[in-house]
């Protein structure tokens, strides 16, 4: 080991952080010890992100202290956190795709001149530690996802290495890549580093963690120290964690079975009603569709598929492999460079967003904050966003407030959107309620085909359940859904067929029957050109 690792204990003491209306962290105390993997579990909204933000120096706690080896420290800025050797790997890529790896790693350096020699030496140290061969001068955009994550880890450890925080690192990885990540983490741990591993999947926490802390509603509700874990079986740990994660909500979530499903404790199978789609009319058909674009995320190549009445067609794939492009080309937001889009056997390739909407095609974007809604506008206006100018809500272009409010009130009630009022800015709502606003808008009226991208991303347990119900209900009533998701579990629960997208191409389609689906989809992901692992 050539790497100097700073060992010791990072203690969070009585951390409290409130935002107007929400207590994100409520008197949370925990110790992060070198050479241990500390799993942080909790539902979305339990306060995990806030705790990381505080450790990363992005937010300051209202009260409480952070100590390193008993010495109080102030993490007043991300730089201060870095100086103390705390690095974070976020869920989203923070690498600049057009730069080389070494340039990406040097982005945070402050010197006047590039000191590439020193940087390459540092990268070699880190590569040794990670057990990975990272070529400094290759383009970041050429990397597979697993390698990208290794570079992200190297970047987080660039200036120092005491604590590495991994925020939901497995959500976009294939089973094989997850194993590789586990190896990396084990190696780092052996090197004396402290690792905080944030996840909402129980089975991963059990497999990789030395100790487990569970947060619920901002409180530290359960801590299992290394000694506690050793003596218990996976089932026992699961019981304790589930009880802590959901508390009284366990019954509300449909008992332990449903809760453990949602907590990713077990393998999943399909729960939507089986249909024989071959007997049903085709609603949406793509005929050799290709698009052009500047980033890989929006480029699809020669995609052909058909979605039938009442069918949920899932698209599985690693983030950024053309999902956005596929959704946009169907919705009419992105022109097709070749191929055709047919809706009820009518060619709509040349039609725009609004014309396709009028034909019953709806699109719920994955970026609900910056694309699906306008944060500075009211809940009522956001519900009406796709009907601007339509009678009776606008007469001769003049806004008819009472008609809009009546319609919005109806939708808020029907879809149980929890909002202080119709005039509240939508940006002030929780993620779950924003998603309800989006789905209410898209499903309302004569929706026939729904394209939906990552519908449950970042949502709390109950809303995930609700969204799944909305989608299955819609399909049971004859609607067709094109469901793009990077949560394999979600696709397996909802979809009738699952197509796997890789580098903008559909590399295969799997019938979702029985328990083999996950394995088949995983195989397609790897075989489908993912140059991920060595």
């Amino acid at each position, binding site marked *: 080991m050539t790497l100097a690792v700073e060992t010791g204990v990072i203690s969070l003491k009585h951390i409290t952080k409130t*935002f*107007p*209306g*929400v207590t*994100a962290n409520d008197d949370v105390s925990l110790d992060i010890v070198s050479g241990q993997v500390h799993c942080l579990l909790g539902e979305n909204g339990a306060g995990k*992100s*806030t705790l990381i933000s505080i450790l990363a120096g992005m*937010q*300051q706690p209202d009260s409480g202290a952070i100590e390193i080896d008993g010495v109080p420290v102030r993490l*007043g*800025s991300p*730089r*201060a956190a870095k100086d103390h050797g705390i690095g974070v790997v976020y869920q989203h890529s923070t690498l600049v795709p057009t730069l080389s790896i070494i340039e990406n790693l040097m982005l945070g350096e402050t010197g006047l001149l590039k000191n590439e020699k020193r940087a390459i030496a540092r990268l070699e140290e880190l590569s040794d530690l990670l057990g990975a061969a990272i070529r400094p001068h290759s383009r970041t955009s050429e990397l597979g996802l697993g390698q990208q994550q290794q570079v992200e880890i190297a970047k987080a450890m660039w200036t120092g290495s005491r604590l590495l925080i991994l925020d939901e690192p497995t959500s976009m990885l294939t089973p094989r890549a997850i194993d590789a990540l586990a190896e990396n983490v084990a190696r780092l741990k052996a090197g004396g580093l402290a690792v905080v591993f944030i996840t909402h999947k129980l089975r991963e926490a059990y497999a990789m963690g030395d100790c487990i802390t569970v947060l619920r509603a901002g409180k530290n509700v359960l801590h299992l120290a290394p000694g506690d874990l050793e003596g218990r079986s996976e089932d026992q740990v699961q019981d304790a964690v589930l009880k802590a994660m959901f508390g009284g909500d366990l019954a509300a979530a449909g008992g332990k079975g449903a809760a453990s499903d949602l907590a990713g404790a077990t393998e999943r199978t399909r729960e939507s009603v089986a249909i024989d789609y071959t007997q049903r009319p085709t609603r949406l058909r793509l005929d050799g569709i290709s698009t052009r674009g500047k980033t890989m995320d929006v480029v699809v190549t020669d995609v052909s598929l058909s979605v039938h009445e009442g069918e949920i067609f899932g698209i599985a794939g690693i983030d950024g492999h053309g999902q956005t492009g596929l959704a946009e080309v169907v*919705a*009419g*937001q992105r022109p097709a460079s070749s191929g055709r889009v047919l809706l009820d056997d009518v060619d709509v390739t040349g039609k*725009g*967003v*609004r014309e396709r*909407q009028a034909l019953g095609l709806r*699109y719920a*974007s994955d*970026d609900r904050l*910056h*694309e*699906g*809604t*306008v*944060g*500075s*506008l009211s809940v009522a*206006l956001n519900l009406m*966003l*796709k009907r*601007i*100018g339509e009678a009776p809500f*606008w007469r001769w*272009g*003049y*806004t008819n407030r009472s008609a809009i409010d009546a319609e919005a009130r109806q939708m808020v009630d029907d879809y149980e959107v929890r909002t*202080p009022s119709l005039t*509240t*800015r939508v940006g*002030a*709502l*929780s993620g779950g309620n924003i998603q309800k606003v989006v789905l209410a808008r898209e499903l309302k009226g004569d929706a026939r085909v729904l394209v939906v991208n990552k519908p449950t991303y970042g949502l709390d347990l109950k809303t995930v359940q609700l969204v799944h119900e909305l989608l299955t209900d819609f399909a049971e009533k004859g609607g067709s859904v094109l469901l793009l998701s990077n949560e394999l579990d979600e696709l397996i629960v909802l979809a009738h067929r699952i197509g796997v997208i890789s580098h903008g191409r559909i590399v295969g389609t799997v019938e979702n029957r029985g328990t083999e689906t996950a394995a088949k989809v995983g195989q397609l992901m790897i075989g489908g050109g993912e140059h991920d692992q060595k």
Partner: protein
Amino acid sequence: MTRSERPRWRRGVDIVVRSVLPVLFALIVGAIILWALGKDPLTFYADIVANGLADGNWQNSMVLMSPLLIMGIALIVVFRGQLWNLGYDGQYLLGAVFAAGFGPTLTQQMPPFLAYVILSIGAIVVGALWTLIPAWLKARYGTNEIITTLVMSTIGIGIANMLIKGVFQDPNVVTPQTAAIPLDAMLPFIPGTQVNIGFIVAIVVALAFHVILTRTSFGLRLDVYGSNPKAARHVGINSRSMVVVLFLISGGLIGLAAAMDMLGQWGYLRANWNPSYGNEILPFVFLARLSPLASIPFIAFYAVFATGATIASQQAGLSVDFLMVIVALVLVFMTITEYVGTKRDLGQSYLPDELKDAFRRPFASMTRRTTS
């Protein structure tokens, strides 16, 4: 994390404070500068009030306010769409050349009211057309409209000067200027005042655009496009036509401002004269949060200030450019107020941590030594 709404009145107070503070600070710093120059700031500010408001001087301020207000609305419309029309000088002067160039003859050949309408429409069309190239480049190729409007503005100013010295030159004088519209053919006064009816036009424009921007489907589409272009595309708003329409409205209104200014206040146009109204009101439309209604008091304030200060600076032996010093100070303090306000909204401390650490560091080493 959710951020719950603060009570409405609290936000209202906040907005007013954030809008008024920069002006106050600018006046205070302006006073310090005056004092450093050996002038008495209190006398200076009292002179401004005397010359901008007292003894019927308010009427001069209102006359100045008409073009300023219309121009303010013109900027508000594009700024709300997050587009930057900074070519206001060229658009204004070309509109002004049209009104001042054809004014003297047209007002004599037909009923004055008809002439006003034709001259105004002509100026509107000229101003709007001058935005067409930047608008089209922006809509079609995404070309940076700041650069293109500025370039077009420079060209427009040049063409205006050429026209003044050329076809519209008053043959009876040596100075390069257009023939003057006879005094009795200028815009009529509002009864009982010395203020021309351009003021009423300006107020009507402000109110009309307040309704259009806040109460119509066009206003909502504009807000969606301006605050979130990605959402606009998602909703199906045609961003290309939006860009072109916004620029045409903006340029047209600037042309209207020029027509009102020429027909109501000046009556002729001299070469190399450029009032740069746009530069002067720029900070104030932002202080008004791009609201047409809220911009009325701000621009009224500036009109009084400018009218009074022009005379006050002459009396105090200062350059009139001192006005722009105050305007620039307003901009500086507006930026600071916004920065602090945003920091506070996010619950962060006002000063960057690095800065605080830099101050703390020398003391920190001292305290550590004493404790160990």
